[in-house]
């Protein structure tokens, strides 16, 4: 589903006369199969968020190639990425990234609005999704009126609303308490089993890593380990 070949990423710091190259990722090769949950773990600064940002198209790699759903996305322009994201990718962020001036309903509806889906179809799908994530009573609530767990559920619902085959999650449980974290992980597992959605989850939380089929460990921008989780 996702294939990364010899992927490297670096950036420059300092002024013109004293520029220094900082290498974040070096020669990464990995593959994520359809229907897998893959967790990417590592210490801070190991390059795991950069890897996810490269897969999301938010930044461009210095070297190497990325293939998602059999498409080489490495050289995609911004507009091509926009279309690709809306068709293939769902995103869950650590800080939820909900639009504060929109209600839970409007936040979930937003990807469909941007895709030009009809109002009737939107209404049907958003209501189904609200029930699915257990937020049908909170649809008119603004993010500031929801708990962290509820906000993350809105965020998940927004990612799922376009029925993407892949969901990229960056520290999805980072802002949640233990109980809510467990709820979310159960939900992710359920989605993975029932709808065969592929998950790539960036985390440093062992609990999260335990729900994964495979864990990829990064150390100083290099792939340190890539192994199946035996006891899932």
């Amino acid at each position: 589903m996702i294939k990364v070949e010899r992927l490297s990423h670096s950036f420059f710091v300092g002024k013109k006369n004293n520029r220094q190259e900082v290498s974040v990722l070096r020669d990464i090769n990995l593959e994520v199969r359809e229907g897998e949950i893959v967790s990417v773990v590592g210490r801070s600064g190991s390059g795991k968020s950069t890897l996810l940002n490269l897969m999301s198209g938010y930044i461009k790699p210095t070297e190497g190639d990325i293939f998602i759903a059999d498409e080489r996305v490495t050289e995609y322009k911004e507009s091509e990425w926009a279309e690709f994201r809306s068709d293939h990718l769902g995103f869950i962020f650590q800080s939820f990234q909900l639009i504060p001036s929109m209600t839970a309903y409007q936040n979930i509806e937003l990807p469909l609005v941007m895709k030009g889906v009809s109002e009737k179809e939107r209404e049907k799908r958003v209501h189904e999704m609200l029930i699915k994530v257990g937020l049908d009573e909170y649809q008119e609530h603004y993010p500031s009126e929801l708990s962290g767990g509820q906000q993350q559920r809105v965020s998940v619902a927004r990612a799922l609303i376009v029925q993407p085959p892949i969901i990229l999650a960056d520290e999805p449980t980072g802002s949640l308490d233990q109980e809510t974290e467990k709820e979310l992980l159960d939900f992710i597992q359920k989605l993975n089993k029932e709808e065969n959605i592929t998950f790539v989850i960036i985390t440093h939380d062992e609990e999260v890593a335990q729900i994964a089929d495979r864990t990829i460990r990064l150390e100083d921008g290099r792939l340190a380990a890539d192994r199946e989780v035996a006891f899932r």
Partner: protein
Amino acid sequence: MKWKDRFNFIRQNMKKNKSRVFMTILATAIGCAFLIVLASVGFGAQRFIVNDLMQDRAITEVTVYGKQSADEGESPEITKEDLETFQSMENVKAVSHKIQLRTEADILYDAYAGGSTVSVVDFQSEKEAGLNLSSGRMPQEENEVLIGYHLDQLLYKKSEEEAEDQIFNQNGLVKEEYRMDEELLNKTIEIEVEQYKDDEWVTETFAVEVVGIMEEPARDWQVSNDVYISEAVLGDIEAFTGTAYGAAIHPDMKTDEVATLQSEGQDRVYSDVQVIAGNMEQVEQLSQNLKDEGYHIYSVTEELDQINVVFAVVKVGLIVVGTIALLIASIGIYNTMSMAVTERTQDIGIMKAIGGHPKMIRSIFLMESGYIGLMGAFVGVVIAYLVSVGINMLLPFVIQQVFDQTIEEAIQLSYIPPYLALICVALSIGVAMLSGLKPAKKATRIDVLSALRRDV
């Protein structure tokens, strides 16, 4: 994203900062209103002058003064042959012409008398040329005549001993106390002509019946004392005077001069020749054809063309000045849109992160600035119409107060043609969208990661 959703999105965004959006719309409205009002003065002045020019002449008229003499002996005056040429020309609806009586003729009715201008006209041609009557009908018989609107107000009792300045008022009409009570319509009047014959002055009267009264002249100061007679009546007058066109002979004239007066008139010459075109568009072509044929002409369209060129320049100048106001308002729009983009950086980042197309984001901001322009233009047009009405209402009052003059006719200083309002609305929206272009571009260039980290 559907247009309806984009529009809803914009409205939602605008609601977030109502006062700022309101002030921007107000600034645009004032700019737009200023532009319209300024240009409307140009339009008003042009309309006033053009209307004034066309008031006493039909726009389809081409006046022929004479012709260039090709040969030495040829007369520059318009003859029957010329009239036939005009009739046969393309685009000609009618040819109006007159033969003026070349003597002073008095009009007598009962005990009243007064001077008048007697002319021979072809009533059929006049009717075709658009001669209008205020009452009565067009003459059909030879002794039937039309009279000018003011003729009955120019007759007074001959026996009055008062001096003329006592009888006539400042408009040149007989004062009411000296006027006759009756109207001349359907009455028989007499045309009195004097001629010097056999060493003495002889007077003869010709009875004619008034069947129609012409309409009032367009200008307040014009006095119409015309009497339009048929060619047959002129023939009677000529038979009496013994000269062509009833020309008067004076005792101090030389014999050869008298002989000339008596011998000419074999070929009639016409004055006040007007060739009437079928419509306004044909006037230019007709004028050109007449010029090509060697006639000296004048048509109101020639003057109109010049006036329109002058006013086109004036209006462009006024619109340029007015546009400056709109450009100043556009700075406000730019500022508002830049603020909006900055405030919504995180929202834009989120939208881009989950698949928002840069084109869609740009179009949302462009539409928002365009919407501000549209609202501003709409309010501006309403303000401009109100100001225009106000100016036109206050103008006579201001002129009276400042210049101590009273205006009788209504002067429309400010006139807003609908297309001016439309042009300004389009200009306003255009300027607003141009102002929003840079902020909209900025919105599309927002870096997703920076926006999500909120460190923009």
